[in-house]
């Protein structure tokens, strides 16, 4: 972000009043993150094509709402992100995600490494606000190395994309419609053990919440020493390519 001699030739847009340089073809969120400016997100991952489903990266561009992960940066745009109107909508989205699944942070081994939890703190979510749905989502513990806890799925499809595009295994998919939409495992039995999934797959590394977990790790790293315990998700050190999605396990 420090000025360089060729900055004058680099196109920029304004994000909350600050000039953000970008490369042609970059989306607003890509340019913002590259410049050290955090825009909340869950389904965005710099290694994957934008998905535009979680809508946490909502911004206002010239007064109109848009997903910053799917909107290509253009010179001269005026983008608003950290304004009350936008933050309120993001908070509502996080609250809706929290009630759609079963998110029990106090006993969740992903606590402190979970992007959804970190965004809850970031956006000042003090309560779920909406009635809890409490869906019934049994755990798939069939795989020797990986546990699938569907209770926490936010349907970001990062595992679907990683398994398809990087691992080329196509292990995961979304099924169902609307509120019934859910993550499934692509095997005849529906069990992870009956796929060729491996703990070293990219899909095992990208979950922003606590769905895909290495087994028998649990609370080996103390609460208080985890990624978002040390720095808030908006801190450049924590969010840099937020993509690692809290790796280091739970």
């Amino acid at each position, binding site marked *: 972000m420090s000025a360089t001699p060729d900055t004058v030739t680099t196109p920029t847009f304004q994000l909350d009043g600050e000039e953000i340089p970008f490369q042609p073809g970059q989306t607003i969120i890509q340019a913002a993150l590259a410049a050290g400016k955090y825009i909340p997100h869950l389904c965005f991952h710099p290694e994957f094509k934008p998905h535009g489903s979680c809508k946490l990266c909502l911004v206002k561009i010239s007064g109109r709402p848009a997903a910053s992960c799917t909107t290509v940066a253009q010179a001269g745009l005026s983008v608003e992100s950290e304004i009350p109107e936008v933050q309120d909508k993001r908070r509502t989205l996080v609250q809706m995600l929290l009630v759609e699944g079963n998110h029990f942070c106090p*006993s969740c081994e992903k606590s402190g490494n979970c992007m959804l939890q970190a965004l809850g703190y970031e956006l000042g979510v003090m309560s779920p606000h909406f009635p809890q749905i409490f869906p019934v989502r049994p755990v798939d513990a069939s795989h020797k190395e990986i*546990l699938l806890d569907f209770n926490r799925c936010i349907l970001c499809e990062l595992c679907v994309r990683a398994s398809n595009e990087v691992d080329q295994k196509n292990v995961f998919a979304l099924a169902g419609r609307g509120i019934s939409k859910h993550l499934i495992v692509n095997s005849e039995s529906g069990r992870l053990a009956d796929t060729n999934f491996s703990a070293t797959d990219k899909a095992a590394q990208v979950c922003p919440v606590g769905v895909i977990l290495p087994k028998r790790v*649990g609370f080996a790293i*103390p609460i208080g020493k985890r990624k978002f315990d040390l720095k808030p998700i908006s801190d450049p050190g924590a969010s840099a390519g937020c993509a690692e999605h809290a790796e280091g396990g739970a």
Partner: protein
Amino acid sequence: MSFKLETAVYPEKLKRVAIEPVSRVEGHGKVTILLDENDQVHQVRLHIVEFRGFEKFIQGRPYWEVPVMVQRLCGICPVSHHLAASKALDMIIGAKLTPTAEKLRRLMHAGQMLQSHALHFFHLSSPDLMFGFGSDAAQRNVVGIISAFPEVAKKGVLLRKYGQEVIRHTAGKRVHGTGSVPGGVNKSLTVDERDQLLKDIYQMVAWSREAVQIIRGLFEKNLEEYNAFGRFPANSMSLVRADGAMDLYHGGLRARDAAGKVIFDHHNYEHYWEVISEDVKPWSYMKFPFMKAFGPDDGWYRVGPLARVSNCDFIPTPLADKAREEFLAFDAGRAAGATLGYHWARMIEMLHAAETIKDLLHDEDILGTDLMAKGERVQRGVGVIEAPRGTLIHHYRVNEDDQVIRANLIVSTTHNNQPMNEAIRQVAKQYLNGKKLTEGLLNHIEVAIRCFDPCLSCATHALGQMPLEVSLIDAKGGCLDRMVKNQQAASLTD
């Protein structure tokens, strides 16, 4: 010695006195006193909503989540559940703890014991003991203690705070930490943390000694009342070390009858069901554990400080052991059989906890880095620990996929279920004439329940705001008498 709870030939003729609610946080409790046709106390029932739900909803969860999840049973002594679950899961993963891990867990547990006992004695029970059971309710609370005995109150607060600091440094948080994991612990103490705790530990030992003297002095001052209050003979059970010493973290099960005769000794707790079982009653969610040797009617027993102090051969820290000897010898041993003796025993244990912390802080192992162990995996694990309120049993089965498929938790208050009923019955017999409810009766029943420090908040004064409703109802449902303490609080709990 048994008090049978279901003995009425014509139960429909009994009159009923209901005290509801007597709890505020962990479950809902009420007391029902049933009177016979001559207005004499016939039965007493302490009804409690227990936490059996945990046993169901941890089914299917991964085992490594359990020590963190089940401690949410309780906000007062979560460390006990945290450690009991960890011990059961140590067994499941075949881990033999490293010295560092075991000593850090013992340190965490001693911190828990210190803070819980301090909380109970100074914050919850000292108002009854220091002002008198029937004293003005407006004064008989922790605020009253702060006003009348500011030095005592201050020491109580600081003792509890110190215990919580020990927990924070070992578990990561003062409440609901994550320090203990299957196979060991996830952190040791830094030198700074150790030195911070060392700085104040000698003061804590000294104040704990003073606390023992406070309760001794109260016994001396009110000898007959204290010895007689809610008194009943009972079996007792606790863990003891292989050499017979008190051990709050690990050991074998020892039980004695009311005369002190050993019923079983050094029984391997991994097979606890060989010596104890649980009975159910239609009027309570809480089970009634009993020793199999005597059956459900006669096999009930008490656990907790009084059981532990009288059950062990000695306490392995010198000041607490001396205090134990004095307690057992006091008034020819009568205090050790009194229900109010729980308070005295509790303070002896608090002193033991402080001495244990002091010893462990001088042990270099707590700074070690060898934190985790594992071994051959099995499917069944049992963890038993002496929680502040008594013996705590966690029993799990875990399938090959690492999921919990069965859980059985027998918590301290459950063991003490029948003894609490018995104590209330004795008090009700003494203070209820069957015709008129009095504030004194309510107070004395509360005091009796509080001796056991049950894990339901009937043991709390809540600054004098404890909602309490008593109704005296005849067999036809007519209300003969009714008393309400703190109407507003009562309505909030409806």
